[in-house]
């Protein structure tokens, strides 16, 4: 059984169909990269999976369990039937954002402890221990725990954000262009962390413009065009011998 299944997903903004009948699945331990031109719907697809955006059709399954949804009117956006189930799904699908999205009013430690306390119901001590362990895992020293996020460099902030996600022991990690907001010299340190996660056989869904990185770490690459999966396959095939002319153009192959 696949870890994550997405089936027949459709999303529109007004009359604009942004995700057009997308289906794919991720096996346990699989790393899938989503590539595509700007505006092709990569972020929207990722955000529909944890229902930050509401699709109007489609199913999301985790370990075969379907997220229960219904639409309030025919053709309208889907809403989760059971708020508890949605929250549980979201915690199992931790997200890392392009702009870090750390909570600026609390220390790094509190950023890591808060979701554990209130989503997993861990006690304070266990949550702190886990937070410090994950900080170490993303290569940050414990001294950073007491500081405010905005006092850190972009690369450090994104690594904290990854640690925050890891603290929830998620089954699938969703990354939305995690290095796009970084200074070029900070990109490497974040990619290193992600490479380590991929090597651990974590299930990951990665929206990225870092083509060489995607090629190195992915098991499978999906190329999105106008909300549809236009091409997919192993990275060697997708990057080495793309068939879609639009993908060739995106990769600079003429």
């Amino acid at each position: 059984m696949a870890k994550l299944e997405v089936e027949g997903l459709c999303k529109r903004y007004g009359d604009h169909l942004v995700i057009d009948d997308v289906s794919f699945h991720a096996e346990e331990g699989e790393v899938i990269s989503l590539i595509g031109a700007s505006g092709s719907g990569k972020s929207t697809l990722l955000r529909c999976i944890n229902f930050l955006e509401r699709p109007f059709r489609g199913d999301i399954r985790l370990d075969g369990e379907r997220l229960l949804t219904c639409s309030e009117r025919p053709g309208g956006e889907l809403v989760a039937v059971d708020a508890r189930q949605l929250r549980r799904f979201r915690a199992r699908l931790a997200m890392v954002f392009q702009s870090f999205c750390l909570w600026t009013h609390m220390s790094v430690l509190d950023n890591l402890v808060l979701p554990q306390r209130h989503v997993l119901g861990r006690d304070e001590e266990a949550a702190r221990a886990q937070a410090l362990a994950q900080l170490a895992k993303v290569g940050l020293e414990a001294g950073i725990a007491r500081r405010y996020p905005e006092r850190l460099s972009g690369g450090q902030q994104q690594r904290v954000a990854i640690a925050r996600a890891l603290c929830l022991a998620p089954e699938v990690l969703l990354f939305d262009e995690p290095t796009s907001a970084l200074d070029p010299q900070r990109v490497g340190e974040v990619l290193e962390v992600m490479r380590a996660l991929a090597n651990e056989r974590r299930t990951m869904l990665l929206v990225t413009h870092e083509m060489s990185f995607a090629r190195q770490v992915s098991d499978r690459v999906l190329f999105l065009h106008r909300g549809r999966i236009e091409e997919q396959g192993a990275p060697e095939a997708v990057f080495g011998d793309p068939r879609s002319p639009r993908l060739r153009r995106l990769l600079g192959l003429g």
Partner: protein
Amino acid sequence: MNWDIILDSAGLYLSGLRLTLGLTLASLLFSFLLAVPLALAKWSGGAVTRAIISGYTLLFRGTPLLIQLFLIYFGLAQFELLRESWLWPWLSSPLVCVLLAFVLNSAAYSTEIFAAGLAHLPRGEIEAARAFGMSAWVRTRRIYLPAMLTRSLPLYGNEAVMLMHATSLASTVTLMEITGVARNLTLNYYIQFEPYVTAGLLYLILTLSLVGLLHWAERRWAGYLVQR
């Protein structure tokens, strides 16, 4: 100069100070309790909720506090129905009327200040909280409220100081807070300068204490907003 009159009236000033402090703190407390949910509702609510709350704040921010106080203290007495209701013992008390006016007025300003603080909360911080599966209650308590309060602390501090100064209006409906005490002395002893200077000094001391408290709170809770 007639400073011995002032010295002899130290006890009066002290009780005036107590009343001013009490009015200020009580008004701040109740208006805070009112403004926080109103701001959250205005920020997250639908068009109707927003319109109702905006109407309320417009009404109370768009008219002078003194008019609001007179309407509550003198104006309500005109209504037979109110005079005969169980509310009347309260509504005929100057203290209750003054508190009602101050609370409603200050809550209107505070609501707008807090709502503006919420509007400056980055969208991503809200999305992250949703994306991690936090319930609406946890998000409100641990993300929205602290972010809102810290972000609006400087403006809210101004509002608190202005409210404290506005409590001097209570003297117009017979309450003997600092201004009332000073005014009585001018009427009884035919001196105008010393009583008001003393009152002004007392307000200044209160203001400085309040500002010190607010700076402390800013350093304690809003340090993350200070640019390096």
